[in-house]
């Protein structure tokens, strides 16, 4: 059926347009468009028509529309005769859920507000292809598009461009799409964790936790590491303890400890109890140290090996454990009592013979800091020696942890994180 469609439409072209019956009587106005949730571009399957009578809103399926241009006309004499209710699943009410709402532009990695929607005719149906987030769209909504266009052209010879975002890159934050988030979150997961963190910070509470809930544990942990501590705390408080434990377990120990230290003791303990024993023990130990000492900056996710281990075996261990390590630039050489004997950089390993034991290639003099050293001293040590990581030892020279360069950056430029 050809409804005499134009090539493209804006949502604004539909909103509040009159709807007529075959005898040319006006029966109501368009109040919403219904789209079928389909990838990549949703198809319009009907209109919601608002009338004056007792039943105020009717669903008018696309098939019942005879033509759109020059005026919207449908088949029956009366809307009441249609008696079709909204399909329940997999639809989007475009006005209620998309128009004027905030969305995530996963291509530009930011939160934007929808001003208008752009539809294209494909095989005599309309499909939603773009959302318009620009000033032009806003002016179109207000009804000033032509005037502003004319004024800008006359004054500055400037053509106001459309700012379109392809629907492919749009992640909705409201309505039924929230429930679908876990399905469609692949749109979100190819964002960089730091961008994802910025987006989460930009959102309001409800949407923030909805998005966060939908992320898989690993992505959630990576994003959480980058989020502002205050929001971090709020987010972790809204999710169930079991999930919190899983997420904290995935985080790097130094970030995890900072987060746990901000929570109330009971909550932190609950989260620790839900975690793997070994990891929880590490974190408990780190938690003892004050924020502003070497102990508060260090992580326990490093690799330490016995001096007798050969280079070949060391490489194998490093390869096996790399996914869970915060420090992969150095391997620390310790004896059975965990006393720090030396350090081997990844460069040393790669240039050595594979049968050599670590004791042969380790640097004889190790620079380390004491657990209770002030963080400013740590920063100085980093600046002086130019290392990418520094080991932390206790009074008996036992290795307790390692500070990564990243933690030092957080001390120097806390705002930039």
């Amino acid at each position: 059926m050809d409804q005499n469609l134009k090539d493209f439409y804006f949502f604004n072209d539909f909103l509040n347009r009159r709807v007529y019956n075959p005898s040319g009587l006006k029966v109501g106005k368009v109040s919403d468009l219904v789209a079928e949730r389909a990838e990549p571009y949703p198809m319009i399957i009907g209109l919601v028509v608002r009338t004056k009578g007792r039943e105020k809103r009717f669903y008018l399926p696309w098939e019942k529309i005879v033509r759109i241009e020059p005026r919207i006309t449908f088949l029956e004499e009366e809307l009441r005769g249609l008696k079709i209710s909204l399909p329940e699943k997999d639809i989007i009410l475009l006005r209620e859920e998309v128009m004027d709402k905030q969305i995530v532009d996963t291509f530009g990695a930011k939160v934007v507000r929808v001003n208008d929607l752009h539809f294209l005719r494909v095989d005599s149906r309309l499909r939603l292809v773009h959302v318009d987030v620009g000033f032009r769209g806003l002016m179109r909504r207000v009804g000033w598009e032509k005037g502003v266009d004319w004024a800008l052209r006359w004054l500055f010879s400037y053509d106001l461009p459309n700012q379109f975002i392809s629907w492919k890159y749009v992640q909705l934050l409201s309505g039924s799409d929230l429930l679908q988030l876990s399905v469609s979150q692949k749109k979100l997961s190819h964002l960089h964790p730091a961008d994802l963190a910025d987006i989460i910070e930009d959102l309001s509470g409800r949407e923030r936790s909805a998005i966060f809930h939908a992320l898989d544990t690993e992505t959630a942990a990576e994003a959480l590491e980058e989020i502002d501590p205050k929001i971090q705390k709020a987010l972790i408080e809204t999710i169930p303890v079991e999930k919190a434990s899983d997420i904290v377990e995935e985080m790097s120990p130094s970030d995890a400890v900072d987060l746990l230290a901000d929570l109330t003791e009971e909550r932190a303990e609950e989260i620790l109890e839900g975690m793997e024993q070994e990891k929880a023990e590490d974190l408990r130990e780190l938690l003892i140290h004050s924020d502003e000492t070497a102990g508060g900056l260090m992580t326990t996710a490093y690799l330490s090996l016995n001096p007798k281990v050969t280079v070949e075996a060391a490489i194998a261990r490093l390869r096996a454990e790399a996914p869970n390590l915060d420090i992969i630039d150095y391997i620390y050489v310790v004896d059975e009592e965990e006393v720090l004997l030396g350090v081997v950089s990844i460069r040393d390993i790669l240039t050595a013979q594979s049968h050599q034991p670590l004791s042969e290639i380790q640097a004889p003099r190790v620079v380390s800091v004491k657990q209770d050293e002030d963080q400013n001293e740590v920063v100085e040590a980093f600046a002086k020696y130019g290392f990418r990581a520094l080991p932390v030892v206790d009074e008996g020279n036992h290795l307790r942890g390692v500070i990564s360069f990243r933690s030092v950056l957080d001390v120097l430029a806390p705002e930039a994180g």
Partner: protein
Amino acid sequence: MEKDYTKWVSSSKRSLWRTVGLFFILMGPGIITSNVDNDAGGITTYSLAGAQFGLKLIWSLIPIMIALIVIQEMCARMGVVTGKGLSDLIREKFGAKITFYMMIGVFLTNMGNVISEFAGIAAGMEVFGVNKFISVPLSAFLVWWMIVKGTYKSVEKVFLVACVFYISYIITGFIVKPDWNNVLEQFLHPQLSLHPSEMTMLIGVVGTTIAPWMQFYLQASIVEKGIKIDEYKFARFDVVMGAVMVHIVAFFIILVCAETLFKHGIQIETAKDAALSLAPLAGKYCTYLFAFGLVNASLFAASILPLSTTYLICEGLGWETGIDKKFLEAPQFYGSYSLIIFLGAGIILYPNLPLIPIMYFSQVINGMVLPFVLIFMLLLINDKKLMMNYTNGPVFNAIAWVTSIVMIGFTLLLFIQMF
């Protein structure tokens, strides 16, 4: 080390300390908003009310206070429950067109307010003998610098300190030694005459106390503070405290002017007149305290209004916001922020400025925007989908509607009188 305080307080076993501590952490938005309300325009109106009618209108402060609490409480609740600003919510529920026109209205009325704040700074500093060509550019720069260089947190602390300086009006109130029995009498037996000049003054007092920008600002700062639902009772207390504080200050301003200017039949037109006329009647310290209060209030409001206007407009229209962004990332944000400050300060420096018509115009726009804001607020707060279990209860809803309708009635009356 605010973090540590928060942790200490929330893990404290003593429930009283816990409550008091939590309040101090969460207080701010309500108290600041209400105090900004006692700006140059407010002080002028209260001074005029006291000078022209003595203590006759003082009873009206109580119903106005209740109205303010009812309206502000709804904003605070919306902010806590939805985590969104009022302009966001209006945009999402009522669409782009109406939001756009509303933002133009809010821009114009706030612009008028900013002008009057800079006028207040100029007038107050002139009492101390400082020329306006020095005081106005300097304060404009200070305002701009404070926002661009400081984060919201430190700015909020500066503002909370500024609230303390309102005490200067209370001190002045005691210096003039009022007849307290008479004051009490006026509260217990309110007189309402329908004399046109009295009605105009009453409408003026209502209009200056409940303005559209406040609802936007309060809700935005509640959201900014990230107050959670279970901490809401503290935010509510904060709002009530703010409303009470602002009316205590208003009470003392009216009292001072009633006890001195009204009793001696001195006619004044501005807050500066009021300050200067106090010297022969109550001593020069009274004048200085009064003028200091005016400068403090104006500077305080001049720092908040431009930023809050910019935020709410950019959020409503979907532009990038935030003082942590670069100019090119958020050109509309920085553009309108600078425009408001430069226009506001610049207009005051213009010779022979027609200040009265400008204020008149700003009041008209104010009156046009306020009914929309109140009705939108009531529709939003009763939206189950949005507010879940935190919609208005039947009784509160009735009070809120009556308050709003009375407020709208007053603004319409103001309109009729203007033309």
